[in-house]
Structure formats: C-alpha cells, structure tokens
C-alpha cells in the first residue's frame, strides 16, 4: 500500500496571531506553525496503516514555504519513506480551486501513484473543509469523507467513520482520497528521539508546481472582529419553567430521531 499524506500546518493557536501582511504566505511566515489536529490525524492514520502492514510506504508532502521546514522534519521524524515540501506560493491557498489543482499536480508528479491520499478535513489556515472534495474532483478519484480510523482485514484495508446511525466502513480498492478528522484512535503518537535527530540530519526535496490563475482573488485580509456576538447574548427571562420551554423550542431543530 502506498499512502500519501498531505499536511499543511496552522498558526499555533496557543500564540496570539501576528497579522502584519495581507499576503497569506507572509502571514504564515510571521507566525509559529504547528500541525493542526486534522493534519495530525491524517498522519497518524497513515502510521496506523503501516503498523498493520509493514510493506506500507508513506510519503508526506507539507505545503508551505521555507518557514515550514521544521514541520517537514517533524513529519519525517516518524520514519516515513519520503518527505517533501511543496512550495506553496503557487497554490494560492485562499483559493480552493487553485490549491486543489496544485496538490493534484504534485501528486501526479510523484514517482509512483499513491493508492490512498490522506488529507485533514481542513487543510491549513485558509480552508474550511472545501478543499478535500475539490482535490478528489481534480484527481478524478473518489472521496471518503471524515475518516476516523483504519484497520486491515487480511489484505483489505478498511477505512472507518461514525455515520449517523451506523459505523460506515469502506474496503479500499485504490485509488481513493480520504479526508481525516480527529478521533481518540488517531491521536498522533510521539516520535522516538532517535528518529527526531535523524530527521534533523536528513534532507528532503522541495517540489514545485506551475502556478495557475486563481479562480478567486483576495480582496481584503483583516483581523476577525472580536468573537463576541454582534448581538449580545439573549438572556431568557421569566420563570425557570418559561426559560426551559423557550430553550426547548430553540433546540427543537436538533432533536434526535426516534
């Protein structure tokens, strides 16, 4: 099984965001980066697949500029078969179409075609979940959404997610794209110090793809308006019984099906 993991990294949420530039690559450069929970879940899923079958080969591609080299090494510390950085300037990462196109190009450029592409359900700081389906469309491959876990049954790899009413399983017949969401079972393991140090010494390739004309232009970038509600909290009033009744009515659309 050949697995390609696409990783992006996000500005570390534990630090205040520095916003000096309106260019996404520069915003990325100005802030400490970490893998997002979805990046980590995708990487761990690949490692789980390799745990089950030692002949699994994992390639990780980190999309970013030179500031992302530490992330590349962080991925490499899991003793992957190959790691590379994909120069992200050409990806126009605010534009889903351009990014999907660029990632698909990079995947097509790999020496061997992956059987499975794993990507976090959100890819980096500028995606809200639109990218993974567009990547699958750009590759012309099917997509398994929000995968949570993977296991081998004999020679067959099974991807698993919690559906609404049932656990959903896909017996993989390559090629597929799977978007991965975080789950107790795919919390990223810690690499061994030995491999962290080896990863520091090891070099990696920097991939480039030809830029495409983005389908969207970036008109403005600004700090989010403070996360207080534009309208202040609506405090329910009256007797507690009245308040409970009003809240029950508010929650009605999310009632469980019997």
């Amino acid at each position, binding site marked *: 099984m050949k697995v390609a993991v696409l990783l992006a990294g996000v500005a570390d949420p534990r630090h205040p965001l520095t916003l000096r530039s309106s260019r996404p690559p520069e915003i990325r450069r100005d802030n400490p980066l970490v893998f997002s929970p979805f990046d980590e879940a995708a990487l761990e899923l690949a490692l789980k697949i390799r745990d089950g079958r030692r002949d699994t080969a994992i390639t990780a591609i980190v999309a970013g500029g030179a500031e992302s080299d530490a992330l590349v090494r962080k991925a490499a510390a899991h003793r992957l078969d190959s790691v590379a950085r994909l120069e992200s300037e050409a990806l126009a990462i605010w534009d889903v179409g351009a990014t999907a196109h660029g990632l698909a190009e990079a995947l097509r450029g790999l020496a061997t075609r992956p059987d499975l592409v794993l990507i976090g359900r959100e890819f980096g700081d500028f995606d809200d979940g639109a990218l993974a389906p567009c990547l699958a469309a750009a590759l012309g491959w099917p997509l398994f*959404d929000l995968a949570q876990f993977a296991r081998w049954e004999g020679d067959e790899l099974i991807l698993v997610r919690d559906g609404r009413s049932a656990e959903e399983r896909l017996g993989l017949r390559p090629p597929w794209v799977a978007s991965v969401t975080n789950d107790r079972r795919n919390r990223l393991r810690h690499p061994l110090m030995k491999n962290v140090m080896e990863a520091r010494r090891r070099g990696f390739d920097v991939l480039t793809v030809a830029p495409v004309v983005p389908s969207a232009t970036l*008109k403005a970038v600004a700090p989010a308006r403070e996360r207080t509600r534009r309208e202040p909290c609506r405090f329910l009033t009256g007797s507690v019984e009245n308040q409970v009744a009003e809240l029950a009515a508010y929650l009605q*659309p999310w009632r469980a099906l019997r």
Partner: protein
Amino acid sequence: MNGPVVALCPCRPGESLDVGPLRAAKTVAGEAGAPVAAILVEAADRQIEQARSEGDLVVWDVRHADLSPLDDAERRGPVFVEALKQSGLGDFRLAVLPAGHVGAALAAAIGKSFDAAVLGACAEIVLTAGGVEARRSTCGGRVEIVVAADGRCVVATRDASQRGPSRRVGEVRPLRLATPLPDRRPVERVGAAGRDRSVATARVVIAGGRGIGGDEGFDRLRDLAGCLDGAVGGSLPAVDAGWVPVSAQVGQSGQFVAPEVYVAVGVSGTPQHLAGVGAAARIVAINTDVDADIFRFADVGIVAAWRDVVPALVRRLRSSPEAFSPDERDP
C-alpha cells in the same frame, strides 16, 4: 451576467428542510434583483411546501430514477449537475449550499462540471458586476478575508436568518431525471455508531465544566445529549476531575469541535476552552454566574443552576410530540 441565484438543497426523508441556503440565496439575489430558484432533490411533499412558502422563487422538485436515500454526494452531485442543466439554470451566477461536508462535496462536483469558483463557507455574500464577493473566516477564526470571483460561483452558508417578506408563494416545477449515475460505493454500514458519540463530529455538543460538580451531573448531560442527537464533552477542569474522558475534552489542549449548537453548562468560558469551539457554532450557556465570560460569546443564555434547568429541559424535549432534524449527514 443576469443568471439566477440557485439554492441547492439536499433533502433527507422525514426531516425538515434546511432553509439556510434558500434564505441566503434570496437575500443575495434580492439586493441585485436577480431571479432565485431552489433545487430540491428527492424532497418530501412537506419539504417542497416548506421551500415554496419561502416565497418569490421557483422550486424545482427533482427526482432521479436511480437514487436511493442512502446514496452519498458521489451520486447526488451528478443529479444536481444534471438538474441545473435540464432546468435551464446552467447559467447560474451563484449556487448556494449548506455549510458542512455534504455541501462541500456537492460544491466540488458543481465547481468541476460548471468550471465555477468554489469559495467555501461564506458570509456577507454580494453579487458584483461580474461575479460574487464574500467574506470568509480563516486562521481558526482569527482572520477574515474577502474573496471575489468572476463568472459562476459556489458558496456554502450557515445562514440562520428569519424568513423574509415575500410577495407570492413559490412556483413548483417537477423534473424527472434518469441519466446514468456513477456506481454505488462499497461503503458498508454496520450496527449502531459508538455509544459515546465523538464530540469532534457531533452536530450538537453538550459541554460541562467545573460548575457541574460531579459524575451525577454528567449523567444528566448525557440524557440531554440523547434527546438532541449530541455528544457530551467537558472543559479541562471537568476532565481533570475525572467526570469526562480525556477524549472528550474540548479546548486548546483537547478536541476541536465544530458543532452547529454548543450547549455550555457550568462552563466559565476561558479563551483556551473557546479556542476548541468552531466559530460557526451557536452557543447556548447555562451558568449561575451572570458575569461568566461564556455569556460574552453566547447566543442564548440562562442564568440558573444546571439542576434547575437540565432535567426539566430533558423532560420537555422527551415529551414534545414530533421531532424533525435538518441533518446533513448521508443525504
């Protein structure tokens, strides 16, 4: 461009229609005077009626001979694409989908077939001379960007606005399709989903904090989650106290959750905790302390002890006669 604004509505049997895309489409079109249409695939009569009653639009009641309720976006995408073509809406300026992974999958299919720009989950969507401009939240909710595209565009929305005024009810046009669809995927459905639902994927998260005070309180929160098709999570102090498994910890050092509704019970609302809650979630706060930070972020608040609210809420939700859910999973 004079093309229409089209709301695309995946429907689920037995549930009420998610009218968000429809209302967003009307709002966007209204400002520019563009025609509005809604495409409902495999909708029940009641859902058609819901769409029609929004008013001032054409409702396309689309059915496909080869579509089953369990079919996912892989087979629904082509149905929407074909419906757009056969209904004469192929020159749309803007297609509006519900936010979430189903909407995202349909957006990808439509983007590819019509060479349309996929803009993601947006707010403040406006039509421009040649296309669309919209605002999107990025960088974990810390930065907002405005994107613009010419030609056809696809956006997702979490519009929760009230129904606007309309001059006349919508006109319904049936459309029957039988175009070939891709093969069904070999996805197998087995048993029930895990007993303790994952907070990461739940549509409703009930989160308890220090204010809950113990295991017994969390049992009541689980009752509430059961009524709401939700999952129970906890803040760091609740996890520290052993009331909630670490896998259900919500916050910077725990899970990131992006539910539609986040019910915070006895949670003070530290930035570290709220960093784990998606910006689009509607927050309901129940807390005894009117000065608790959580109320600064909440949409709806009750200042009371959870013991006085949660059990009563559970009783009320259990006893009300009918339940519809605008679920977006497995359309």
